[in-house]
């Protein structure tokens, strides 16, 4: 049964098409969610323990980026300028808004100090519009842990891709 040569070319092509369909559907869903939430990355995984006990490593967070009047106490996800790591921290201070851009100061619940040290050099507040990619509205614990595993043990990626490819190609209707 597990023999590639026994597959008809037509069947093989159908399987490949099937695989492409799955991939493109996932991509479309992701981008659709992006448009709906107005956020470049509407679902993020918590990467560190700086927001414990609210969020642990590996928790999955859903973001919303419409209505940018962020209040104190909300948890926002932002990218530090020049770096591409999303950071999930709570807003502890805000000023501006209206005609001038809204500025936020954030802090991890589990950190001793606020994030001034974490921001780009010379920056002491976040710009709501430019730096923040969304405000956390939903939460599922632990489900995202697999992405942490994948980034910490890169060989797992190869193994997983290989397995996925094999099952799709070898699976028969």
């Amino acid at each position, binding site marked *: 049964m597990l023999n590639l040569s026994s597959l008809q070319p037509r069947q093989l092509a159908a399987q490949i098409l099937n695989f492409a369909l799955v991939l493109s559907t996932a991509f479309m869903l992701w981008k659709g969610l992006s448009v709906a939430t107005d956020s470049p990355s509407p679902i993020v995984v918590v990467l560190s323990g700086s927001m414990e006990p609210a969020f642990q490593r590996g928790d999955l967070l859903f973001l919303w980026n419409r209505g940018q009047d962020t209040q104190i106490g909300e948890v926002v996800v932002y990218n530090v300028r020049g770096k591409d790591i999303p950071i999930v921290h709570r807003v502890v201070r805000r000023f501006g808004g209206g005609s001038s851009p809204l500025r936020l100061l954030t802090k991890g619940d589990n950190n001793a*100090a606020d994030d001034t040290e974490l921001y780009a050099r010379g920056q002491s507040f976040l710009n709501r519009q430019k730096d923040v990619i969304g405000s956390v509205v*939903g939460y599922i614990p632990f489900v995202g842990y697999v992405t942490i595993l994948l980034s910490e043990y890169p060989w797992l990626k190869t193994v997983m891709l290989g397995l996925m490819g094999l099952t799709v190609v070898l699976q028969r209707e």
Partner: protein
Amino acid sequence: MHSTLVRAQTVFGFFTTVAFCVAALIALSDFVSPQTPSADVKLRNVQVVRGRPNYYSTKKEEYAHIKFDLDTALGVLHLQNQRPKYQITDYTGKVANRSDVVLELGWNVQPWVGALTWRGWRDWGVWKGLKGGMTERFEFPGIKERVKVRKEDLGTAKGGEGNRGKPA
């Protein structure tokens, strides 16, 4: 076909379906459990002192030390992470003699799974708005003259330096 692989797939698929259904029920149960929060915040004492945001900083800021009494009845909600070490100042770094200051109680409900919610002033479904939870307007006093301010009073957390700047 009933190979081991197919069976394993079926079991795993069933497991994820059940897990997500239970999670959805838990998330929805939040919105049908009534909340009738009430709270009472009373100001006891305010002082304003000069200090630095952290040990290595050269920036001088004014911080307000506020002592207050808090009496809450939040019902089913459990309190966590109510650490009182936040620095009370603003972006100008000057808070002495500031008027129209109000203390306001707020919270964020962290669910087991589902939607995050925040303190509300208005009724919403079976949730009642918060009653009380705000002080009268008051004024910050002038800067307290330096009479040997102890280090912990400045809000510079000792030993917390290693826990600074961890991303996410």
